[in-house]
């Protein structure tokens, strides 16, 4: 195709970003059978280093890290596919110092984890990555996660409220130190200005789960100064948070899924309408022609081991056709998150064929070393909601 012609199309003005999910050996449950390392080598730092560096040098803007218990694959034998996973936030933290431009976004559960810990851990991730951290909010609907911490199971209608409460606690804790709270004033001996630290006094009013008792409260302030970005960008799957929560700014971006690539455009438009201020990120499973094998052939081979069940749209085909699809999705979405079937195989094709083509078309945001996740999303660095000079947006809270 002619890149010259494409680079002058009107849609080239719109520049989006690409995210890559880096869990395990890839999105397909049988991906490990095509990996270029032994199974045990998956669960260590060497592997995290290799994949995140490959993603960064391929030109991905964002790396995401899935978390939680791995659901046993349907009709598979016990232990047939990977049952283990390193903590997502720690994988992201490990990647922080060795990367320079890629944004690091771990998935963190909001239902069975302590909000105070989550907030501190995410703020710390922002520090160790130089402001390249984000939070992909998850709300576990797994009974096993409830059992692990001995709490009663939170059913579907409670998930959004748990998630929203947890986001609110974190946001308040991130704001609980104003930016200039650390003053190190030698003359008065004061390390901090106490007037710039704030109790968050969060109290959830909802009764989260029928048997779990009432909500909870968190006093604050945070035990760590305000994150470098002020507020980390928060990503949530569309449908988790209510329209009210979204319009109140609970999430900075929503991830949308559709059953097929053709139906994605409709979902993107719907998400945009529901949360006009949030970025919209489309989810896409990807299987590419590779190593002399057709994508369909590769998928059939993997599926013969364990079928890949996913609620995301799936692209199966050539690098050129994927380039076309991504070009068109990025005309309406702010970003696309790719879930390659097999990281060791599909990432190579993406790096060599797809991303260079998209860059030539001018549809990708430039990679900027040292820049923050908020920069990538076009978000201002907000003032703390507790800052004495009140800003108009503080009224929303």
């Amino acid at each position, binding site marked *: 195709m002619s890149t010259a012609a494409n680079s002058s199309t009107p849609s080239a003005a719109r520049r989006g970003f690409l995210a890559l999910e880096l869990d395990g050996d890839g999105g397909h449950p049988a991906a490990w059978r095509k990996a270029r390392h032994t199974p045990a080598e998956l669960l260590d730092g060497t592997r995290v280093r290799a994949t995140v560096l490959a993603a960064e040098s391929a030109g991905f803007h964002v790396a995401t890290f899935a978390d939680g218990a791995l659901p046993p694959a349907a009709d598979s034998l016990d232990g047939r596919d990977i049952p283990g996973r390193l903590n997502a936030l720690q994988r992201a933290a490990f990647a922080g110092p060795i990367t320079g431009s890629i944004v690091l976004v771990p998935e963190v559960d909001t239902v069975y984890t302590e909000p105070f810990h989550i907030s*501190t851990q995410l703020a710390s991730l922002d520090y160790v990555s130089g402001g390249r951290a984000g939070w992909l909010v998850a709300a576990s609907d797994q009974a096993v996660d409830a059992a692990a911490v001995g709490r009663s199971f939170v059913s579907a209608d409670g998930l959004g409220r748990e998630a929203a409460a947890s986001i609110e606690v974190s946001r308040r804790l991130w704001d609980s130190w104003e930016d200039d709270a650390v003053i190190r004033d030698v003359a008065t*001996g004061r390390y901090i200005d106490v007037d710039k630290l704030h109790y968050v006094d969060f109290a959830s009013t909802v009764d989260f789960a029928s048997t779990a008792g009432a909500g909870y409260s968190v*006093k604050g302030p945070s035990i760590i100064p305000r994150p470098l970005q002020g507020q980390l960008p928060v990503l949530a799957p569309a449908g988790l948070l209510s329209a009210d929560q979204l319009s109140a700014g609970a999430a900075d971006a929503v991830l949308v899924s559709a059953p097929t690539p053709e139906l994605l455009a409709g979902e993107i438009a719907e998400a945009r309408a529901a949360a006009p201020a949030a970025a919209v990120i489309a989810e896409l499973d990807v299987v590419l022609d590779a190593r002399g094998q057709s994508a369909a052939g590769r998928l059939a081979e993997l599926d013969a081991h364990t079928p890949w069940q996913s609620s995301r749209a799936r692209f199966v085909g050539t690098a050129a056709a994927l380039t076309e699809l991504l070009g068109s999705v990025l005309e309406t979405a702010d970003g696309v998150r790719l879930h390659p079937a097999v990281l060791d195989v599909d990432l190579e094709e993406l790096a060599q064929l797809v991303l260079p083509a998209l860059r030539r078309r001018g549809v990708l945001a430039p990679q900027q070393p040292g820049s923050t996740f908020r920069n990538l999303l076009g978000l201002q660095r907000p003032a703390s909601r507790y800052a004495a000079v009140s800003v108009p947006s503080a009224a929303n809270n």
Partner: protein
Amino acid sequence: MADTHIGNGFVPSGQLQLGVFFQGVNSGTVWKSPESGSQTDFESFRRIAQTAERGLFAAFFLGEGLRLREHLGRPHALDVVGRPDAQTMLAALASVTTRIGLVATQNTTYNDPADLAHRLSSLDLLSGGRAAWNVVTTDNAWTGANFRRGGYLDHADRYVHAEAFVTTAKRIWDSWEDGAIAETPAASAWAAPGSARPVHHGGKHYTVDYVPRLPRSAQYRPVLFQAGDSPEGRDFAARQADVIFSAHPRLDDALSFRRDIVERTVKAGRGANDVKIMPASEFILAATPQEALEKKNWVRSLQIGPEQAIAYLEQFWGRELQGFDPDGPLPDIDPVVEETSETRGSGFHGAKAKQLADQWRAEAKDKGLSIRQFVSARTSRGDSSFTGSYTEVADRLAEYARTGAVDGFNISPWLIPTGLDDIVNHLVPALQERGVYPTEYAGSTLRENLGLATPVRQDNADTVRLRLTVGEQLL
């Protein structure tokens, strides 16, 4: 000369290890010095950790506090305040270091066992077997106000709870069979069926029903440190820990602490040398004794200025003492509280205020100390500080190695991020010349570098004995 005989079959190793305690909150660092860098920037942590690794330190250590310390009802303004989450920071340091151990202080009261065990396991695997957990049991409701569970734990139960917690964590770490994971992607299954055992715990404080998600690491499971000095804390360490982070660095005190721990360890059915001891310490060193002394005075003047001295007393008096001259005698008015509060951190908890004030006034008068001199002597790790020339201090430390009083020291640098430079450049070589410090890392894991034995699986030899000692029911 102290009686150096430990008894009970204890054999001094003749060796010392060093750890570095990156202090996040305190008056221990001289932040007022122009040379002092950020306490939160990653570069400070990287610099300290990499310098320590150059000095063959066994461990990089982070403390924890889950509520901001307060002073008279407001966050404390005078000391360093605020620090990153330990495990997140250590995971980041794991990618820029290769040998040094990574120790996270984590509380058993405000965590869930399955979650904490999983995160520690992750850190252990990410770092290639270099993770450790410093188990603390700080339990006040004041800290609990930051957590869903709140202040649900009775102080008397803190170690019953901690022991059930640690036992559960160990079972989680032991739950995957060795060799369960396939050797090649061509295998029929990723892991042998049934190779991960679910872990159940049902007890007074919590219930855990969990399918562990990670195999054992290169060092089998995270090394366990313990910090907590009560008799219950010492017994807990004797049963469960690999290393005690102690508050007993003075030689005579260290020797009697060692004797006590050896006795408890043997009573718990373990070997006399099984629990290592590393006290918290501070080093103020220079080329000559005279220079070191001058340096010490300078460090102390920055650590405890007039404001810090008054504030320190206010914490125990429970009232403002701004009218008192820092260079004058201790306040003649009495505390307005019965007990000192925990809001300034665990070290300040629960002392009888009036009694303490009387005692201090008498002591200060006796020694002719001003407020500032008195506070300075009490804080800044007066007891735990080693001041002198490099060779002088190396000689003193060699005596600790010879007697087996300690297995090493956990050093708190008073300057961030360059405070380890003189220790690594001068003290370490002096210790090596005396044959009491390693000249290379013994191995790639923390367990190897500390000379610890491979742990026995929790569900084999240990279980029967633990059933008898743990105050909670093991299912």
